[in-house]
């Protein structure tokens, strides 16, 4: 049984029945097709770890998480096709995902910020309007991601769930209460920016002709507010803070040497902080268990490979 056309035959019906996203699925199925040609076996016959490793290496992925996703789609598709043609689904063997042949460490480096790079970008996000800081909202999104919040957590953070207290050293601390956890913010600048963001009334957008357009924020209970444009959404929150920030990166021409700003996501910023904490010079203060706690992870498994990445990124004196 060597039918290399299985993908073409079942692609449409698979997408339709499983309601997978078309573009993404097509991209993955194309890679299954290419891997078939290289390996010389149909995807239903991939019985070696090496077969799966080769398939995954075609994505040039920079995190095990995306590799798990590509693996899962392959598995779902194989199960689907097997059922259609009436045979048992294949049992795929998962290779070691941290293998450097599978993970693209170069891509990861282009999406990993050091603390200095974080400060560099943060400074560029500060814009002045008539001598007053403006568009603090975007800066806060970026800072909150560095503080360890996910896109979803930033989106749903309500002002009423932020409390400011003073700790035993007399330093101001912001306590953010989220759905499943509580985060302490001890970054003085971020605390200040959160307060300014709460008071901010307008957002400035530079039009294509270079004119600054002043827009009001909607009155919503969330810290990160959408601007008044179009029909208001029932939920009230800004749909995708990460996307809004990426638009700002592009609109303001924000640059950072060694970093691919066009594709820098909030997840990358958050992971960068994680890598920073895992750097060898910070080992004394942050062991795997502490970092796991800060980032609300179930296990330390996913941190082990990032520790290796941190070693590379923060070589002595860098």
């Amino acid at each position, binding site marked *: 049984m060597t039918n290399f056309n299985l993908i073409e035959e079942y692609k449409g019906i698979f997408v339709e029945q499983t309601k997978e996203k078309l573009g993404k699925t097509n991209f993955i199925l194309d890679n299954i097709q290419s891997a078939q040609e290289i390996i010389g076996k149909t995807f239903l016959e991939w019985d070696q770890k090496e077969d799966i490793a080769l398939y995954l290496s075609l994505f040039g992925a920079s995190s095990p998480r995306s590799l798990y996703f590509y693996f899962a789609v392959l598995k779902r598709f194989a199960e689907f096709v097997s059922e259609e043609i009436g045979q048992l689904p294949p049992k795929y063997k998962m290779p070691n995902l941290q293998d450097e042949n599978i993970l693209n460490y170069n891509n990861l480096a282009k999406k990993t910020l050091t*603390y200095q790079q*974080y*400060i560099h970008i943060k*400074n*560029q996000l*500060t*814009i*002045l309007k008539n001598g007053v*800081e403006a568009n603090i909202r975007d800066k806060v999104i970026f800072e909150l991601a*560095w503080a360890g919040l996910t896109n979803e957590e930033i989106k749903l953070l309500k002002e009423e769930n932020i409390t400011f207290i*003073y700790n035993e*050293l*007399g*330093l101001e601390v912001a306590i953010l209460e989220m759905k499943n956890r509580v985060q302490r*913010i*001890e*970054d*003085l*600048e*971020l605390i200040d920016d959160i307060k300014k963001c709460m008071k901010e009334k307008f957002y400035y957008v530079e039009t294509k002709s270079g004119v600054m357009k002043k827009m009001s924020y909607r009155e919503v209970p969330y810290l990160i507010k959408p601007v008044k444009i179009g029909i208001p959404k029932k939920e009230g929150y800004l749909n995708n803070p990460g996307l809004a920030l990426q638009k700002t990166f592009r609109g*303001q*021409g924000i*640059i950072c040497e060694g970093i691919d700003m066009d594709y820098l996501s909030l997840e990358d910023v958050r992971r960068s*902080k994680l890598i*920073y*904490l895992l750097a060898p010079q*910070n080992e*004394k*203060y*942050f062991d795997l268990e502490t970092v796991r706690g*800060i980032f609300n992870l179930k296990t330390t498994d996913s941190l082990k490979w990032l520790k290796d990445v941190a070693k590379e990124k923060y070589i002595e004196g860098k």
Partner: protein
Amino acid sequence: MINNEKEQLLSFIRENNSNKPLVSNTLMQALQYTTDSMKAKALLNEMLEGNLGGLNQETLSFIIRFLEKKGFIKNIGKEEQNNYLEDNNIENTDLEELQELRHSYKILIAENRKLQENLERLVKENQFLKETVFTLDKNDLIEIPDEDICELYVKYVTEGIKEYKKAFVINEIIPKTYYKIKRREK
């Protein structure tokens, strides 16, 4: 010099022992220039206990410069103590300047794009001109017989008709001979 700086820092902490928030806030602000807040907090705790082991030379010097700027300790004025703030362009966080730079960067990018487009257009035109060399060839010369000219002359004067066979009227003139321009596809 390291010992000297360490002593300066420790004496700042000791002297202001009664005002903990002042010491903590000042040191935290200084630390955050080079260190993330989570690590800064850990370092601050150690510093307040008199342990400066976690600070590297760079951070230590920076804190001293910061305290000098804030007027908490006297500037010891040693040239060799590099002005960390200036050397590391910390002053450049001057926001107005940063915005100005960003603005000029954008203008440069736009200008560059325009120049690039102009260049591409000129290259295309040049290529087209190169291919369009015109040489006179008597075979291409179109000559109108006298009878046709006479015929058109009468038609033009009486009926306003401007073309007859290969003859035509242009600016009140009927040319006897002419060349046709042959256009090539771009």
